[in-house]
């Protein structure tokens, strides 16, 4: 099956679509995290948003970025995928470190606090898998 038949964005010649093979599992994992983080963050903000506004806003933000990554990887939009995956990596590393350094500013869990411990470290592992996959599917002679 070619990329045209699947209805994704036009595939860059010489590259492997990011949604093919192992990419399908990666997209599924990103989609799941997007759903989980967004739903949780929206609930927390609407139900008891004043308790930990920073943590809850970060949950929603991370959910939206996971959503962008899911969309980009599922439709072979490489540039967008790179941005989203790198923002996630920075997010989980910065927020993870900040939640350990200043625990009083994080009275409730976010997806990224403690480096994603509450989500089985998946938020920490995914961006690295994403970078690996984007490099792996890149054309050999560059693009």
């Amino acid at each position, binding site marked *: 099956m070619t990329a045209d038949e699947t209805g994704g964005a036009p595939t860059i010649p010489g590259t492997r679509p990011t949604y093919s093979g192992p990419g399908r599992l990666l997209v599924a994992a990103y*989609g799941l995290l997007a*759903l989980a983080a967004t739903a949780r963050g929206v609930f927390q903000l609407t139900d008891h948003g004043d308790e930990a506004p920073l943590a809850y806003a970060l949950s929603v933000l991370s959910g939206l970025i996971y959503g962008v990554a899911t969309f980009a990887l599922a439709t072979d939009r490489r540039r967008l995928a790179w941005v989203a995956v790198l923002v996630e990596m920075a997010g989980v590393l910065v927020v993870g470190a900040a939640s350990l350094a200043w625990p009083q500013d994080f009275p409730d869990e976010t997806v990224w606090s403690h480096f994603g411990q509450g989500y089985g470290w998946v938020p920490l592992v995914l961006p690295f898998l994403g970078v690996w996959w984007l490099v792996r599917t890149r054309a050999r002679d560059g693009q």
Partner: protein
Amino acid sequence: VAGVIPLLVVVVAAAGLALAGWAGWFVARDRAVATIQLKWGAALEVLLVLQALWAGGLLVMGRGDVSGWLFWGYVVTQLLILPLAGLWATAERTRWSSAVLLVAGLTVAFLEFRLWQIWAWA
């Protein structure tokens, strides 16, 4: 609250884990998702819809004191998992479609466990 929910929780969680195990076996054997697996997945989805209706009925009758948004957030998310995973898995029939179904089955089972917690703690 009611006697049926715990039984349903066990059945749904077991079905999710069984579907995941079946898909995992297919991953190991390098096989794509089979149509029969999708049919069993659809059967599980029917169970999930029945559960949502049952829980909704109990709540409407004022039995069960759960945080509505939290409970329905989980219910709706759980209902979305299998159809989305099925569509995504069948678009490319490789072993990775089985891996997607594996994750979906585990997720449904996990969300069922969380639903039970939310209901029981209320």
